């Protein structure tokens, strides 16, 4: 009996490890921009400044256009780990922007392939996706740690 319980526990443990490993492997967030953006690296604080409206221009003067995911694991990870904020605060910030008229809401997509496609065709855009999503048609900027 003990052996059976031990085996079940072992199977659960291994399954959990596999899940956690998969989670880690599948949860690499990358920042992507349109190929006309002349930046190769960016700091997390700069990303937060962009997504919370404190930085609106690229170093060459062109306007930054923010692209976001509507919800989901990638969105939550991006907001929590990179912006170090919460989805509700980010949503609140952009609602403030549109209802006070001080800006335009960012483009929001339901899936990451659409984010890549939009960024590939729109100058000055920045977005985030999971590394596993195909992104050959956009430029990846490395997040400085």
């Amino acid at each position: 009996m003990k052996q059976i319980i031990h085996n079940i526990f072992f199977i659960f443990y291994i399954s959990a490890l596999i899940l956690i490993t998969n989670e880690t492997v599948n949860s690499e967030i990358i920042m992507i921009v349109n190929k006309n953006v002349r930046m190769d690296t960016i700091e997390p604080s700069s990303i937060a400044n962009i997504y919370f409206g404190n930085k609106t221009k690229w170093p060459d003067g062109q306007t930054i256009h923010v692209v976001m995911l509507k919800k989901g694991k990638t969105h939550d990870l991006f907001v929590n780990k990179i912006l170090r904020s919460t989805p509700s605060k980010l949503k609140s910030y952009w609602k403030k922007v549109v209802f006070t008229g001080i800006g335009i809401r960012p483009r929001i997509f339901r899936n990451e392939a659409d984010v890549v496609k939009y960024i590939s065709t729109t100058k000055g855009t920045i977005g985030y996706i999971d590394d596993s999503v195909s992104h050959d048609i956009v430029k990846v900027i490395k997040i400085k740690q």
Partner: protein
Amino acid sequence: MFQRFFVLLSLILLLNVQAYSNELSDIDIHAFASTGFIISDKYNYLTQSIEGTCEFNEAGINFSSLITDDIQIGLQIYSYDLGNVSNNIIKLDWAMIDYSWKETLGIRLGKFKTPLALYTDIIDYDMLYTPAILPQGIYSLYLRESIKSVQGMNLYGKINMGTPGIVGYDLYYGTVSIDKDGSLPKMFTGEDGVFQYSEVKNLLGTRIKWNTFIKGLGFVISYLQSDFMFQINNQGVKSTIEYSQAALKILSAEYSIGNLNASFEYQISTGNVFTEIDMTNIVGIPTINKLESEIDVDSYYGQVSYRFCRWFETGLYYSVNNAEKMDPTINKPDYADWQKDMALCTRFDINDFWLMKFEVHQLNGVGQVLDILQPEEYKGKNWTAFVFKTTFSF
């Protein structure tokens, strides 16, 4: 002048809709609608709440579009009702052209939301904060129409200072239009008076916001001053009330980390008031009385809120408003000199578009209970109000 600007802006927006009729997403459209219920036990809170009232709502719809990468146009139409104020008459809330030239300098022309303190520009949008009713000493719902939008010019920008953080600024000049059906006329004229004329001149304001090097910690300094006057006719008695160099000075601090938000604000209102009462029509001979007084009122509050999960947030604030000291000859109790409000707020986000709020206010003093809402007798300084509000926005 402003009407012409509004017509021009509407035309540009309409042309833009036509130009992009197949791509409506080029016109950004957002709307909100909220309705509430207020009930209180001893005194009227903002409206005729003793019997309970649903005359507490707001709704608006806005249209915005990017003309170029740096130029945006937009407008919002809006209506609200608060008891006998406004009664859902549709008005223009904001309409402007915004040119973001550089990160450090942009300009807005037209009618824009007033950059003042933490919440003045968003006072109508309760989905952007925890309470249903913000601390009334600084964010008076009753008087909001006289301060929440400015017609004129707004310079703005953000300066990245490096290690010390980011400093954002707004500098604006213009005027405010006072509607005859609005709260200020009702406050001055009472039940029997007729509001004849108002003028707001030399409105000048600034807001400087420092997002410090400590993540989530920010400080704001705001200043607003203007000269304004009203003319009222109350059963033959003509009154002219002039506020000279009326000023608001507000210091704000905000800290936000994770699901926790805390804020503190302190406001001082100052100014000189000149009142001229012309009773010639009553007395039959020229009879004009002139009075001069000074305003020096302060308000402050502390607020903390915490979001427990995606759908539930709660908050608590304590606000104090030290009203103008009463003339001892007027028969009012001492607690008419202040109003303190302890509010416990709950917010339920049912989904991304719909939320509900319940809150209880434990009040002390009646310093902000307006004369036109005044009960026939004073029933003690401690009283209670309950508020429910639900809002839809997209």
